[in-house]
């Protein structure tokens, strides 16, 4: 797994640097404008679009074929594709928490953060198996739909929290929101299992 992650980090250095710059810029603008929603969407988009960039590079370089032919188990290869997107999702959630501290009167309640994190995990979990199964080129249509759902979903979730304040108004609702990342992690675990199965059956 160490080798797979190291390759992933080295190969993604440029894109991760670009992500960091873009997110920081949106974060600063969001803080200055006191509008945390400004960068939430960008953050989710980054985490969700990262797998397509990474898997497209793997396809071009035939890395997955090399890793499998070298004897690396499909489970390790599949799991390695989730580490960076999930870390990005976590970092974005932490940055969003920081934003909520810095903005005097944030429109997003605190309990919205775990839900956004969960949404990101679920979207990443949906996309990776699609790209591994159909390839990035063919899976792009599905990917586009998922990205649209990501943006629309985060906006809708954000709106729901702001306008209705439904979930956070009750203790049970708050507990539900707080525990929602478990749902995201379960989706990721299921997705890793599906991706492993895809790699096991895939022919190169």
């Amino acid at each position: 797994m160490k080798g797979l992650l190291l390759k992933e980090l080295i190969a993604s250095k440029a894109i991760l640097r670009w992500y960091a710059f873009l997110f920081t810029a949106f974060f600063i603008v969001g803080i200055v404008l006191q509008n945390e929603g400004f960068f939430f969407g960008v953050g989710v988009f980054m985490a969700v679009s990262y797998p397509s960039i990474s898997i497209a590079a793997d396809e071009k370089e035939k890395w997955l074929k090399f890793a499998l032919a070298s004897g690396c188990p499909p489970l390790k290869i599949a799991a390695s594709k989730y580490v960076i997107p999930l870390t990005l999702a976590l970092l974005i959630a932490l940055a969003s928490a920081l934003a909520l501290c810095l903005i005097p009167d944030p429109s997003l309640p605190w309990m919205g953060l775990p839900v956004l994190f969960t949404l990101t995990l679920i979207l990443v979990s949906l996309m990776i198996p699609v790209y591994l199964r159909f390839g990035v080129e063919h899976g792009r249509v599905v990917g586009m739909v998922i990205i649209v759902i990501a943006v629309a979903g985060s906006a809708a979730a954000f709106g729901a929290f702001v306008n209705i304040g439904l979930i956070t108004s009750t203790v049970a609702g708050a507990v539900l929101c707080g525990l929602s990342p478990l749902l995201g992690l379960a989706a990721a675990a299921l997705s890793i299992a599906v991706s492993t199965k895809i790699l096991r059956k895939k022919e190169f």
Partner: protein
Amino acid sequence: MDILNIQGITKQYPKFRLDNVRFRVPGGSVVGFIGENGAGKTTTLKAALNLIRPDSGKVEYFGKDVRTLSEREKAGIGMVLDDVCLPDSVKVREISPILSGLIPTWDGERFSELTAAFSLPPDSAVGALSKGMKMKAGLAAALSHRANLLLLDEATSGLDPVARDEVLDLLYAFVKDENHAVLMSSHIVEDLEKICDYVVFIHEGRIVFEKSADQLREEFALFKGSDEQLRALPPGAVIRIRRTPFSLSALVNRKAAGTRFPLERASLDDIMLFYIKGESR
């Protein structure tokens, strides 16, 4: 002892069929795998690497089905595929840390020695290397597995004659150990003639022959002459015939043809050409 045993692999694709491919790669040997483009060489190597699922048949590595090999056992197979598969954005000096975390038997020192021997620039990204240099990087990686078996798919293509010679020397040294073997496909038949102990010829998905280098030299010969002379050869001697407006030649069985007419040595190129382009008597 056979290091690799390919047992009746069959795989049906929409426009191609790999048909009951079977041959062995004995320990301490280099086996050349020849055939024209699309004959099934790469598909067979993929089956040996468990990258495709054959419809029937199996591949055994040291007597064990390749589908059931453990991570460590599979690391005993080093390979260079026609596309080198190393990430373009990774620098040559970064290959070893990556592969040491991927391949349990990785030998970093060996890799450093080989990259120095191949004059691979450590700070160059793999994507910036020429095709020949990329191939050398792939070979250095394959030879740093502490592997028992090397599967090389056109691994010497793109290399200049000096580099090819260096690679052949490395392969020759590698198979001095009876627990090591090489299966290599190449269009540079000259390389195969220099190094191979056995040759397997595949045509349209089927194995035409599997013979030792000595058998090839003893069995096959080239006849060049007239129609009349050809007719004078014993019936079982002529394997394939090629006619052009200006000449007639035939691939013959040296023993059966006898000594009545002068015969020339048949190269692997000749044998392939006659089998593919020639006609039977």
